[in-house]
């Protein structure tokens, strides 16, 4: 990693600076406070050098505080050099109950033969609106896996544009959104297959309670030259109440004739047969329903490659589904 572009969280934390009290083993933390990197206030720009294959996970924790403006626009970029391997955890939190609007542009570019793993966790309060635009460019033989976990937030919108630019580029996009109350989540995916032999898959799952609203709109666009494309898309939603609403909109635009593409969408309720089976073994209805929801979410959580992170996210998801505010074990949430 290029040092200039990479500001490590200092090992000694001044009392007034943010830090994570329960960092995961093998991770480095970097804080972005109200849009600027902690320490320099500069926009975030991370470069992984050519051939860099560190096992370390870089965790970028974006925090909104009451000292920042109500409305904020920021840009950040992540670029991965040829043959590099990178692992990122991107978190966004709000640490004040003020109404926030955050507009973010995130550029992610993968040079040929790089391999990148990103887990994104969105955990904000009910008065927070967060609009993120992802522009992702994946070149020849490079592969990206991304997991979006939208656990909490007033109005969260992820606009994800992926360009597969070069043969054998691959992108595995996954998302889990859990909404209740009047929360709203929108995921807008545009997967562009521009070259032959590329692979993409999308799996987005949502659990909606109360009067929440979610939408998923996923486009697979296969360009005329992109023969031998494989592109798959699935969106499944679990509606726990009659008031919850979901809009699921798969779109396929295919201009090549030798491709494998599929999409599927379901919106449904908890399965009654499963529920009876669980209850017949002595599990109370509420716990049984929770197990069903956890099981539903698991397919997405299972895409997290770090076992430790997966365990944490499974436990955060459980807390969230139990209606508790999700935070890591022993975390005091105020990050300082």
């Amino acid at each position, binding site marked *: 990693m290029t040092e200039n572009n990479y500001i490590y969280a200092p090992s000694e934390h001044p009392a007034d600076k943010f830090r994570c009290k329960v960092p995961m083993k093998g991770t480095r933390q970097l804080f972005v406070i109200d849009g600027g990197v902690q320490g320099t206030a500069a926009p975030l720009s991370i470069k992984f050098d050519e051939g860099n294959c560190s096992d370390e996970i870089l965790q970028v924790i974006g925090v909104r505080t009451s000292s920042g403006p109500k409305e904020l626009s920021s840009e950040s970029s992540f670029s991965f050099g040829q043959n590099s391997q990178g692992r990122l955890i991107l978190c966004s939190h709000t640490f004040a109950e003020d109404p926030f609007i955050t507009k973010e542009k995130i550029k992610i570019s993968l040079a040929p033969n790089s391999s990148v793993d990103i887990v994104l966790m969105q955990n904000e309060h009910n008065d927070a609106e967060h609009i993120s635009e992802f522009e992702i460019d994946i070149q020849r033989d490079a592969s990206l896996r991304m997991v979006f976990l939208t656990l909490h937030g007033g109005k969260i919108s992820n606009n994800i544009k992926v360009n597969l630019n070069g043969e054998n580029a691959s992108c595995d996009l996954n998302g889990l959104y859990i909404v209740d109350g009047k929360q709203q989540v929108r995921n807008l995916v545009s997967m562009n297959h521009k070259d032959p032999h590329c692979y993409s898959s999308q799996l987005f799952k949502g659990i909606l309670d109360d009067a929440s609203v979610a939408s998923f709109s996923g486009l697979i666009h296969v360009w005329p030259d992109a023969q031998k494309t494989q592109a798959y898309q699935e969106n499944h939603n679990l509606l726990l109440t009659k008031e919850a609403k979901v809009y699921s909109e798969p779109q396929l635009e295919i201009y090549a004739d030798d491709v494998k593409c599929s999409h599927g969408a379901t919106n449904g309720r908890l399965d*009654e*047969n*499963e529920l*009876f*089976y*669980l*209850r*017949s*073994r*002595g*599990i*109370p*209805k509420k*716990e*049984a329903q929770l*197990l*069903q929801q*956890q*099981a*539903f*979410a*698991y*397919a997405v959580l299972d895409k997290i490659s770090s076992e430790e992170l997966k365990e944490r996210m499974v436990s955060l998801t459980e807390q969230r589904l139990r209606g508790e505010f999700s935070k890591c074990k022993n975390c005091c949430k105020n990050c300082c």
Partner: protein
Amino acid sequence: MLNIKDLHASIGEKEILKGINLQVKPGEIHAIMGPNGSGKSTLSSVLAGRDTYTVTSGEIEFEGKNILELSPEERSIAGIFLGFQYPIEIPGVTNVNFMRTAVNEHRKAKGLEPLNAAAFLKIMREKMEVVEMNPSFSSRGVNVGFSGGEKKRNEIFQMAMLEPKLAILDETDSGLDVDALRIVATGVNKLKRPDNATIVITHYQRLLDYIVPDIVHILYNGQIIKTAGKELALEVEKRGYDWLING
């Protein structure tokens, strides 16, 4: 232990059980036989508390208490176990998580502390041996990708974990080859105790070669039309149901 009096149950407008009377005492094995559509599976679902069926009249007493108002989980805690004809697949819920949750709910009801992971796994391994189940099944999703035989073994394994007072085994033999049938039946026999009882629901005599009943009932059109000893099952095997229905 179980006392069913003039039980009527319907699904929607359709009456399926039309006055069932049945008494089961501790230590007994009862077999309920009958042609398709006679109400066998309905009876087992109603006993387990499935709310798709409405009990329109009659009583079900279990250990002297009316259980009609109890939820499925309360009936399980009380000691009733239903072995499903078609065990449900639950992707994402592992067998171990499923059973640990269930066993700890049973323990909680008895005022016991939840089992820790090590103690639980030990018991789980012991009980899996009862049905010759491969330990690797514990980390798999409940019944997901299990063969017919494996699913039924998993039912008996769950029964072994929960140690019910009354087990109702609904068509446990359906879809089983001879080896699986032997394993399942052996499991049931191993779990037999003087203070528990079993109701075996089946189409065929075959299972009853392995699990020998004390009493055999023939269910037809929502009523028990004949009750006798185990020889009745053999007679049904030879002569079918017609002579009972028309006789």
